[in-house]
């Protein structure tokens, strides 16, 4: 029986151009991501194989650019992650479904009826502005769709920064009053567990890893997943170290080899991007390890400073992307770099001291100060009032 299962999945994979070896290697990388030893590989492979009979998954969109779907699907040349996700019985996905219109919505509705059985994958921000009308789906607001789908889900995976906290959609001035799934559900008193996977877009391998963990290895059922989440409900095995901790350019950082300007010899040498605004030291994701675009490369390796898209409130906190510190919004003045503000304040203080020094010189106090008062002013006043001893 188990043997037949294996055959089934390998046939499926082979049809998409994925060899058995590639697949096992991929399961190995998932095991590594989850912090499991390689002895778990067969178990993961078996779990994926049986997945079609486990919980179905639904992929909904809020206010999104669809970049996360793009990141996941990479439609031109489907890779293992896509195939695996396919097998995970993604029964409805706004963007990817073959079915359209009412048929597609009916498919989703059929899943929603299986209370407690399905996983909801949510991409995009929850836009509360315009009475929820910034997004309309099937004649209803996007908010309604989320509120309708969330309570019955076994768990929600919020993919990409937008679903986590509103992402770029909620960047200043946030016209659509965007927020993240978790915050919105808390507001509505819906307590379905939410697993957050920030970055813009999210990394497909993380989605697969989390699904394997939650569904197939059963950590949702046993509750083990809760211990694996940090205080922002992000899996610790992905979000506990900074980019900087694992960066291949770290040696250049320590040695003080920096790129100061693009288009220079330093850039060609692959020096550290700290001076051109790399947010790696403040950004907690494992991008350098998991890598992107089917593990071809990732931001810093490809020569771009990390813009901190894995942080919360990442646009306002990370911009300007080529500066070390964020801008501070000053009333009536606008966005200003912290160093400019500090320089102005310190300059005013220095000028004040210089002017004061001229005054001290003019009043003859610079060689020993003025003569001392005989007694404190207030004692003198008291004496004048006749109360003195």
């Amino acid at each position, binding site marked *: 029986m188990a043997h037949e299962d294996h055959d089934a999945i390998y046939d499926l994979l082979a049809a998409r151009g994925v060899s058995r070896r590639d697949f096992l290697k991929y399961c190995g990388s998932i095991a590594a991501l989850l912090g499991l030893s390689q002895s778990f590989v067969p178990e993961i492979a078996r779990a994926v194989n049986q997945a079609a009979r486990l919980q179905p998954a639904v992929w909904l969109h809020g206010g999104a650019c669809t970049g996360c779907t793009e990141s996941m699907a990479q439609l031109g040349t489907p890779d293992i992650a896509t195939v695996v996700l396919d097998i995970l019985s993604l029964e409805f996905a706004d963007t990817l479904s073959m079915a359209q219109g009412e048929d597609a919505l009916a498919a989703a509705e059929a899943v929603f009826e299986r209370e407690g059985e399905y996983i909801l994958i949510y991409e995009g921000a929850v836009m509360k502005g315009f009475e929820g009308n910034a997004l309309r789906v099937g004649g209803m607001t996007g908010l309604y769709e989320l509120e309708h789908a969330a309570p019955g889900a076994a768990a929600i995976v919020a993919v990409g920064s937008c679903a986590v906290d509103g992402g770029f959609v909620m960047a200043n001035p946030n016209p659509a009053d965007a927020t993240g799934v978790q915050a919105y559900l808390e507001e509505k008193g819906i307590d379905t567990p939410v697993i957050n996977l920030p970055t813009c877009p999210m990394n497909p391998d993380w989605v697969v890893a989390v699904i394997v963990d939650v569904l197939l290895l059963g950590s949702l059922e046993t509750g083990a997943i809760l211990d694996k989440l940090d205080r922002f409900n992000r899996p610790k095995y992905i979000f506990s170290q900074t980019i900087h901790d694992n960066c291949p350019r770290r040696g250049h*950082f320590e040695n003080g080899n920096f790129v100061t300007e693009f288009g220079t010899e330093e850039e060609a040498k692959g020096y550290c991007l700290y001076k051109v605004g790399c947010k790696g030291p403040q950004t907690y994701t494992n991008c350098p390890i998991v890598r992107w675009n089917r593990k071809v490369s990732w931001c810093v390796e490809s020569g771009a400073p990390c813009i901190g898209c894995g942080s919360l409130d990442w646009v306002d906190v990370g911009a300007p992307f080529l500066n070390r510190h964020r801008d501070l919004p000053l009333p009536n003045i606008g966005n200003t770099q912290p160093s400019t503000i500090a320089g102005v304040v310190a300059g005013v203080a220095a000028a004040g001291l210089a002017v004061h020094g001229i005054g001290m010189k003019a009043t003859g106090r610079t060689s020993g100060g003025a003569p*001392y008062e005989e007694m404190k002013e207030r004692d003198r006043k008291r004496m004048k009032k006749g109360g003195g001893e």
Partner: protein
Amino acid sequence: MAHPAHYREAHPFIFVMTHWINLVSIVALTISGFYIHYPFLPGLMSVARGMHFFFMFVLLINLAVRIIGAFTVKSATRLGSREVDTDIKNWLPQKLNRGQMWPWLKYYLFLKKEHPIGAKYGVLQKLAYLFTVPLTLAAAYTGFAIWGPTMDWGFFIAGTDAVGGPMHMRIIHYYIMWGFIVFTAIHVYLANIEGTDPSKLIFKWQETEGLQFDAEGKVIGGKGH
């Protein structure tokens, strides 16, 4: 010439040492801090960070020593006198400081001609020195909150979340450096503007003659009387 005598009792030797160590640490932390903020020369990052991570502990241990000293060492109760009492009593506001805030402000704003009576230190000076303690602790807190080995301790995470993440913590740490720079500029200016006798004492432990005061702040003799 109307300045007070500067006697060694004002700064017992241990405080001459803590002041030196403080000065060296702050200078080292500021230079390395500027470098970490924006590496203006190639090749020195590990030196700068090594320096920063060394002197941050020196600064804190020095603060601890200074505070223990405050409770265990006796220092002069006022300038121009050799009479001593437990240092902390002289460091915090004393009887002679009472009601003197406004006269000091007027003096420095050129609205008062005569030098106000001080105690161990004048009112503004005491406020400024007192301010260095929370400033140092704030530098330490924000610093440890962005330091790899300690940043995920619950105590620091609570602060990092409260200020909206590590980027903001870094900016606050950076502003604390500017707090030290502005404090030091004003401090160095005021300590020396009326003559360098105070510096001779705190750096070289060298006494200089001048006015002597009684416990009421009255001039009772000394050079310049």
